[in-house]
């Protein structure tokens, strides 16, 4: 009971989830109220996590860990989800999916992500993943009158259940051969000569790669991103990736630390495949949400490249990458959500033409995000990639760095194509004027952070370094 204060964030989110659920059931049309309260609770939870920032404690007989890494990623999840709630509010109301369960499901997904990040036990990892995914399946098919949305939900559910099955199979193998589900005991008993353990490791990696949509387990991503309501897509692109990365870092660098050579090659393969597929497949896309899906696949590839190094620099570069990725995606999705003509949301890339004349400020910030996603200096996206490549070269993975650089150039093509459409294509009808404050705030925040990150990168890098030291 002494350490109960360390899981206050989890308890707080769990309790507020239940309280808000009851309020929502008894009060009619309470979407606005519940969304406000949810965003408010997420913001309250941030300082609660931050108080524990400098501790490293194991709870529930070493099965649950609160350390700098978990605190950093949790704050990132809370912040990005709060932004996602703010800037998607208008979209949800316009599309009449304003059920009060929407924010509640987001909250339960966040609870699942917290457990994924902090769990030091395979059971906890599985339960966290399930809690998160189950909420996301429902969110994807929330617009149940739309064929696309239900299709996305069903597709996500079936493939997600399959990947959970593979993950569980891997967990059972690991448990059978090491005699425990605790990461520390697994690390003690992991014998790299044992084929069964290696199989278990591979299956667990498959399950986790599915959750962060790394190639070759990415097939669901474009369809789900396109089909789900844009507000849900924005959420998909932000927090679940952070949680997936947290889980991967913890399981690879704690449980499977002494079999580094076994999983390094898998990670390198996934990273290279994601970077190449993300860059090449995105070229032919016409729908901006599908394009964002491929863009996140390729970004996951860069993130995994950092983890494949096995050195501290690589881990901190990956954490920094995922942070800046989240900031860039917040901005990009805020821009996608302004694509609205006569109250109908459009998703085609062609619809962006003439944005520079009708909405010059938004066109400018969208350009900043796209340049940053492409990795053009001096924007934040460049530094994210720069640190990754530094770490990769330091770990003597020259081939990986070269492939990464080449795919960066390829992917720059489709980002630049959007910029060309925005600035040089014939003008079209104006988008509706922006009424949502959430979009304005998110755009301003992420544009400023991306533009001026280079002025003082050490502030962020300081936190990232502390976080990455936690698993070494």
């Amino acid at each position, binding site marked *: 009971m002494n350490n109960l204060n360390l899981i206050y964030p989890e308890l707080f989110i*769990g309790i507020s989830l239940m309280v808000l659920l009851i309020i929502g059931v008894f009060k009619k049309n309470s979407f606005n109220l519940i969304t406000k309260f949810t965003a408010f609770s997420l913001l309250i939870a941030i300082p609660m996590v931050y108080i524990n920032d400098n501790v490293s404690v194991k709870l529930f007989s070493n099965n649950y860990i609160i350390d700098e890494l978990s605190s950093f990623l949790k704050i990132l999840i809370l912040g990005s989800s709060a932004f996602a709630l703010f800037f998607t509010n208008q979209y949800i109301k316009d599309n009449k999916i304003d059920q009060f369960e929407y924010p509640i499901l987001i909250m339960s997904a966040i609870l699942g992500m917290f457990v994924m990040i902090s769990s030091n036990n395979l059971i906890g990892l599985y339960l966290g993943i399930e809690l998160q995914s189950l909420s996301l399946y429902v969110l994807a098919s929330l617009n149940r009158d739309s064929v696309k949305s239900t299709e996305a939900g069903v597709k996500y559910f079936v493939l997600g259940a399959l990947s959970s099955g593979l993950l569980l199979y891997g967990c059972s193998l690991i448990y059978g051969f090491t005699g425990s589900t605790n990461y520390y005991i697994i690390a003690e008993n992991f014998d790299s000569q044992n084929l*069964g353990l290696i199989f278990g490791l591979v299956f667990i990696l498959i399950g986790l790669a599915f959750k962060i949509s790394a190639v070759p387990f990415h097939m669901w991503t474009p369809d789900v991103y396109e089909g789900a309501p844009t507000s849900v897509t924005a959420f998909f692109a932000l927090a679940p990736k952070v949680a997936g990365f947290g889980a991967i870092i913890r399981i690879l660098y704690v449980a499977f630390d002494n079999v580094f050579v076994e999983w390094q090659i898998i990670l390198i393969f996934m990273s290279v495949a994601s970077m190449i597929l993300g860059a090449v497949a995105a070229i032919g896309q016409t729908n901006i949400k599908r394009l964002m899906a491929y863009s996140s696949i390729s970004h996951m590839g860069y993130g995994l490249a950092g983890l494949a190094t096995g050195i501290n620099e690589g881990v901190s570069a990956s954490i920094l990458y995922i942070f800046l990725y989240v900031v860039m995606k917040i901005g990009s999705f805020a821009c996608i959500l302004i694509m609205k003509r006569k109250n109908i949301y459009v998703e085609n890339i062609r619809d962006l033409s003439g944005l520079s004349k009708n909405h010059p400020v938004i066109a400018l910030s969208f350009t900043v995000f796209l340049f940053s996603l492409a990795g053009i200096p001096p924007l934040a996206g460049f530094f994210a990639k720069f640190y990754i490549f530094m770490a990769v070269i330091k770990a003597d993975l020259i081939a990986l760095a070269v492939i990464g650089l080449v795919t960066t150039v390829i992917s720059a093509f489709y980002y630049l194509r959007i910029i060309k459409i925005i600035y040089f294509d014939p003008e079209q009808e104006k988008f509706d004027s922006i009424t949502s404050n959430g979009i304005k705030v998110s755009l301003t925040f992420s544009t400023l952070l991306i533009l001026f990150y280079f002025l003082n990168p050490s502030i962020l890098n300081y936190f990232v370094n502390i976080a990455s030291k936690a698993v070494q």
Partner: protein
Amino acid sequence: MLAHAIIFYFFAFVTITSSIMVISTKNTVHAVFLLILDFVSVSCLFIMLGAEFLGMITLIVYVGAVAVLFLFVVMMINIDFAELKSGSLDYMPFGLLVGLVILVELGMMAVSWKYKPDFVVKNPMTTTTASNTESIGLLIYTDYFFFFQLAGFILLVAMIGAIVLTFRRKNSLRRQDITKQVSREREDAVELIKVISSKGVKIND
């Protein structure tokens, strides 16, 4: 010991044959019944291994809830499974390939299989002479308390999800409101009008 072996092989045989018949039988209702038989014999095997809690849970959850629910669904919706299966031969080569890979994997696993010697006695909780159920209870409510609560949250989310995706509030639906019915007065419903001869009555509605 011999009796034990005979009973074990009997249940093992029933398990394997019934599970093969589940996928080979044409009649779906039969398939569900065979599935139930499969679960029952698996739970018997669990009990023989000394895992009586797991056996009972299998019986309650899989037979009592899952399989019966499945039976209801199969009986109520009239799906022609023979027609659904008709195209499945096209996927046969790919299916065989996947099956082959899994078979090879299982073979490799079986060759390299060895239990950790201190497999069961790792946890001090389970070394006591307590029964199965008792030791699971001891673990669930201490070390795994947090995860146990989390499992509850997963069930809550499943419930919320089912309601969100299926519940439709119909405004045209007329619900019975007993209080309203009982508190209805005569004056609300009945109006006495004096009918004037050869003029008729104008009903205001």
